[in-house]
């Protein structure tokens, strides 16, 4: 069985998180923003799994299940909002939502 050092796993998680964050920051399309959030959630999940494997505990995997469930819920609500937004503004540009300023 090949061991992957824990540092590599965490590094990948950090990279994924950064990619997700950058996507969140630079993308204007709301769907890509949602996808970036998914990437960030997965990065967090990966970090938990790596940590769970390192100390041979089930906690990391349990946390990942939570994240999975939450991500599903988030996508469901998020896509519903995106649909509403599309109806209302005829656009998927996140900046179009700035009128409430809050």
């Amino acid at each position, binding site marked *: 069985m090949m061991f992957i050092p824990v540092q590599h796993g965490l590094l990948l998680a950090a990279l994924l998180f950064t990619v997700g*964050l950058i996507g*969140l*920051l*630079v*993308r*204007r399309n709301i769907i890509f*923003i949602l996808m970036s959030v998914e990437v960030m959630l997965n990065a967090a999940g990966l970090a938990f799994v790596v940590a769970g494997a390192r100390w041979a505990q089930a906690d990391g995997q349990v946390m990942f299940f939570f994240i999975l469930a939450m991500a599903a819920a988030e996508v469901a609500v998020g896509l519903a909002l995106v649909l509403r937004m599309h109806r209302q503004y005829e656009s998927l540009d*996140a*900046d179009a*939502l*700035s*009128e*409430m*300023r*809050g």
Partner: protein
Amino acid sequence: MRTALWLIPTFPLLSAVLLAIFGPRFSRRTTALLGVGSIALAALISLGIAADFLLSPPPEGRYSQSLGSWIRVDDLRVPIGFVLDPLSLTMILIVTCVGFLIHLYAADSMRGEEGYSRFFAYMNLFVAAMGVLVLADNFLLLYLGWEGVGLCSYLLIGFRYTNSENGRAARKAFIVTRVGDTALAIGLFFLFTQLGTLDIAAAMQHAVAEWPIGSPLAITAAALILVGAIGKSAQLPLQVWLPDAMAGPTPTSALIHAATMVTAGVYLIARTASFFILAPPVQTVVAVIGAATLLIAGFSALVQTDLKRVLAYSTISQIGYMFLALGVGAWSAAIFHLMTHAFFKALLFLSAGVVIHAMEGEQNLFRMGGLRRIVPLAFWGFLIGGASMAGLPLITAGFYSKGEILWGTWIGGGPVLWAAGVIGVVLTTLYTFRLFFLVFFGRTEAEAAPRPGFLIRIPLVVLSLLSIFGGFINLPSRPRLSRFLHAALPPDREGAPGRLTPFGSEVIVAAAFMVGLLLAYELYLRRRAAVRGLMRLPMAAGMYTLWYTGWGWDLFYDRRVVRPVKALARAARSDWIDLIYIGLARLTTLSYDALRRTETGRIRWYVGGIAAGTVLFIGLVLFI
């Protein structure tokens, strides 16, 4: 019957509250019934109590009633307590009875006026406050009435508030009397700290027992009370508010001048007489102020062109007589004159109201004339009231009260003050009959006025009778009122009568009256041209202006008080302390503006902010 004492101020107060709340919803009839009826009840109760008091005098000559505690802190206890002694009984009779007649008159004369119920609410409150002031047995309750009277005068002078001139007059009256009120308040604090009690009788007993005559404590207390009395009673140098107070409706003027406000100062000094006896210099000042005021106001009354302003100056002058009497120790004479003054001054004002009504609001004397046939009721009212005020010998009340004051002045004050009083008689007669001749004789321009109603005629007739017969209660040969009052007032000051006898004094008063009458007759009825000739003298124009403007007091206050205060206010509006607060306000506005810009509503900016913040926070945790 005595136990009903507390109802005297309560009925008017209740009616004032009812009128203030439900007034606009009441019909005029209900309003008048409530407004006049409450005072009528108070007057009836006063009369009943007076009869009771005279028929079965209470032990020690005074009856006091405590209704409970107003304030109770530690050993300070302020009861709501009323006291009935000859002095307060006489005063409350004047206040309620004369007040009732004025209310009766007002019920008719104010009929067409805007704010009918408001007017009666104020008037009732006025009488209630005066009742509290007169009956109070402790200084704090007295001060409550004192301030209530001041408030009501403000409200009533500014009754027709749509005209800004009236509002100005009301504010002037309020502020000028407030100067006196402040002094009185300080005086009351002083008395409390020195004597440890607020009960008037107890305080005076303590003072008499502990303070020697002429001690600085007594002088301070008496001086502070005196300043309070000067403000309310419109004496020198705080007399400037009263002539302007004519802005109020005529019944208001009658009430302020005859029964309530201006008599409060005289009453206060009489009530606290012991302090003044302990401070002879202050008592002398009272007499000098009275004499100076009666002369100065008399000269001013002589040249006024406004009917009501003549009467206002005459009130200042007559109150001057009362102060003179108080100052020379003729205590009962002061109260006697207060009583007769209430009768004839109310009569004069109500008659003036009839005249002004007939002239459709015209108040300038020189546009009147020949009104004798047009308003005979006012003619007779003026004749009787004026004769009484001037002191028509033997058959008017004013003659007896003024004669008594002058005799008291001769005994207790010396020839100089006495001479001032006698000159005052000449002046009074002169300005009264000048007014009378100008209004009722000569050519007529007015048209026949409608006959005054029933409610207007009754008060005029009753007050006329009182102005004549009211003096017989205290004839020099049978001084019933004086004897009655002596139970509550200190004994009159003794002195060597010199060569003058009481009879001689009366003769001189009568002679002074005749001189004044003859002068008025010659100058204003027979030879009007002579007055114009007098006016052409080089001195005359200056004197005329000086007297017409009330000896320039208004100008003096304007220059020395009003303008410096205004300048100070203007300077204080932009001082450096303000800069601190203005800077603080600017800073807040600026930071608000800056923070407001971060709230853009752009999600990605917020995310960026959160991410940057998180990085910063983690960095801080890791590396520091």
